[in-house]
């Protein structure tokens, strides 16, 4: 854990203490459990997003992909009689395909990530709505999938399994990003793609993999979201979720220029965002102000972080080389 992560953790604790003082219900097990569930859901997609951001890219289609994968999964399982493990594999395959397409367009045709994934955002939302004729996809009465439910919306000793899933993914991705050869390549490509290429790294392949990993994690997140909401309105499911993910990564110390960030940071970023949501609910702030509070806190947080760097540079000048 680096200093930035530690600062974020302290912020989370301080905000937590303030909220708990103002409204003790913050500390009720059920509130913490529910918040943990949301941290798990959003964390899954934010970790995926952060892998793309490390390369200096961005993945805007996450929210729409959550809607598309969600309606397909629920429809396959509820209406088409596809066994859920098969549907799960199909959805991960779909995520792989979407990531592959994005990665290929970005690396082979040299399209900008913002544009490619913005088009993805529009296309997948459109397909999701068309697929259900803008109707709601949901499970019928009496339909029950105990194992799937246990895995997704189940809880053990109050700990939501979505949170556990997020932790498992976070640990795996931590090893991948911070300890593996591939992770080092991700950082190198994000810092300076040309220099990485001049070092004999297949930069295109690294970038394609980043988008594939992002979409696979998004597909997993989509299934968790689908099981959590249990009925899916394709016009609104997952709206803005890419922005939550980007916000969490930025709060967690990622640079949108690439090459900087940590898994611990992005997870803490998600925790802080959900804590803020919870704060809005618990402190009786009109929920219409939800976004405004989140935007304000992110802006202040990033500004303070940046200025803190300047202040340090001023008073602790680096020794001249």
């Amino acid at each position: 854990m680096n200093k930035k992560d530690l600062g974020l953790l302290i912020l989370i604790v301080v905000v937590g203490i303030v909220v708990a003082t103002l409204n003790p219900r913050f500390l009720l097990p059920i509130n913490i459990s529910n918040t943990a569930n949301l941290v798990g859901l959003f964390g899954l997609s934010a970790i995926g997003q952060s892998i793309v951001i490390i390369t200096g890219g961005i993945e805007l289609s996450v929210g729409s992909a959550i809607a598309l994968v969600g309606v397909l999964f629920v429809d396959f399982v509820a209406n088409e009689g596809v066994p859920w493990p098969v549907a799960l594999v199909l959805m991960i395959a779909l995520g792989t395909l979407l990531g592959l397409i994005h990665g290929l367009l970005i690396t082979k045709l040299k399209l900008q990530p913002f544009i490619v994934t913005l088009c993805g955002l529009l296309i997948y939302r459109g397909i999701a709505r068309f697929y259900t004729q803008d109707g709601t996809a949901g499970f019928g009465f009496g339909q029950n999938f105990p194992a799937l439910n246990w895995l997704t919306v189940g809880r053990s000793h109050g700990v939501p399994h979505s949170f556990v899933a997020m932790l498992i993914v976070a640990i795996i991705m931590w090893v991948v990003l911070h300890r593996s050869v591939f992770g080092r390549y991700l950082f190198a490509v994000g810092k300076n793609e040309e220099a990485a290429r001049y070092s004999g790294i297949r930069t295109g392949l690294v970038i394609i993999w980043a988008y594939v990993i992002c979409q696979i994690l998004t597909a997993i997140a989509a299934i968790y979201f689908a099981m959590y909401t249990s009925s899916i309105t394709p016009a609104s499911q997952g709206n803005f979720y890419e922005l939550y993910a980007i916000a969490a990564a930025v709060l967690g110390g990622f640079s949108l220029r690439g090459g900087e960030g940590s898994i611990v940071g992005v997870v803490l970023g998600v925790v802080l965002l959900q804590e803020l949501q919870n704060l809005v609910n618990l402190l009786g702030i009109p929920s219409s102000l939800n976004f405004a509070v989140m935007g304000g806190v992110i802006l202040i947080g990033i500004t303070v972080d940046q200025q803190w760097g300047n202040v340090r540079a001023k008073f602790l000048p680096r020794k001249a080389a």
Partner: protein
Amino acid sequence: MAADAESAGHRAEPPWLVLANLSKSYGPVNALIDFSMTVARGEVIGIIGENGAGKSTLMKILGGVVAPDAGTLTVDGTPHSGFTVADSMGAGIAFVHQELNLFDNLDVAANVLIGREKRQGGFLNLLDRRAQRDAVAPLLRRVGANFAPNTPVSSLSIAQCQMVEIAKALSVDARLVILDEPTSSLPLAETDKLLDVIADLKRSGIAVIFITHRLHEIERAADRVVALRDGRLAGHLSRAEITHDAMVKLMIGRDLKLDEARSNRPVGDIVLSARGIRTPSRPAAPVDLDLRAGEILGLAGLVGAGRTELARVFFGIDKPLGGSLSLRGQPLRLKTTTDAVKQGIFLVPEDRKLNGVLLDLPISENISLPNLPAHARRSLVSRALENRTAETQRKNLAIKADRLATPARSLSGGNQQKVVLAKWLAMTPSVMIFDEPTRGIDIGAKAEIYRLMRGLAEQGVAILMISSDMEEVIGASDRIAVMHEGAIAGYLDRPDFSEENVLLLAVGKQMNHTAAA
């Protein structure tokens, strides 16, 4: 020019700018110690010194960016205790930086007048494009530019960009123009043009400070030389005393021979062979080239002759439009740089900061990057293995770094170049391509790099050295290939090595004595 220099030399005019006893330290590092010099109207002063000798600190003080700890600057008899950026500009000091600061999305006139645009006045106060052009045209004529004020900067060569920078300096009525490494990226012919411009500035009474590692140009252009070593004034040379050897001696405090004895080794077998290679930038000029084990083949030519493009093909960055490569007789197909690295073909690129090192990554991670899987156990990177490799390379190449965990950014240019070398030498090279290996590197580090290249050649590595530095091409090569407009114009063997021959081939003419082509 020599007579010119005598008549307008510093003895004739009293100095208007006097630097007295300047000192500056950064923490424990003394960047400049008790340094004094003067500048008079119309004199050309060459400032030389190795990297870290204090040149850039001196320039920062002159620009008002850094305040000296002690000492004074006197302009026209008025001493300044705190010399600010505004004071510097007020004194008419203008800089032309090594890294050009032009906006290549704008045209020449917009760049020259940036921040001082001509306006139409009135309510909207729009840009007056015609007035801009009219103001800039005479300046361009003065610097001998053959392009119009409305030319987009993106279409100019590096030399032309420098002319724009100098025109910019003239537009603010500069009395002193400071050129920082102006010729380091210039091809031979354009260097001459720049030296002409300097002579012209001099004639109109403008003083020029000329900082360069290319001593040959100082010999040609400077009225006197000021040498810095370890932050101190190492000595002066008057016009008559300026010789290459004298300058080197002042800079490093001892004699130094650039080209060490070339052994007459028998040349080895052909390692890398190119047949009919056509690069995307010069599709009409197929290149045949054979590179032998144990030789240093110098690749000379004007900038834009297609040398770097050829290197990019050899390293798998660009795909050739046609032709074939072979390595030790086996056909070689390079889809990516990864393929080239696997075959032991390594490139030390021209732009060190952009392509050579990852400035923000630690030195050790830079060195292990091309061969990371060998520094990993079950695809998890082992810091211990990385550090071991980096430590070995630091010793072998004498990389001056306190800690291997510090970012490559903190190193000097020469040491960054050594890091680039280290990452390849930690593997087993069979072909090494050096693209401008010593650009912007001080003379001591240069000699070390030549020694390393020679050592590699002696181990049987085939070396291709692209260089625009004549001394380097002639001093370090076993054989020289000269490119002209994308094709190989001719080869030179040892007995035919001369600046003249290289130049003739580079501009597309025949060589002088032998009739080789």
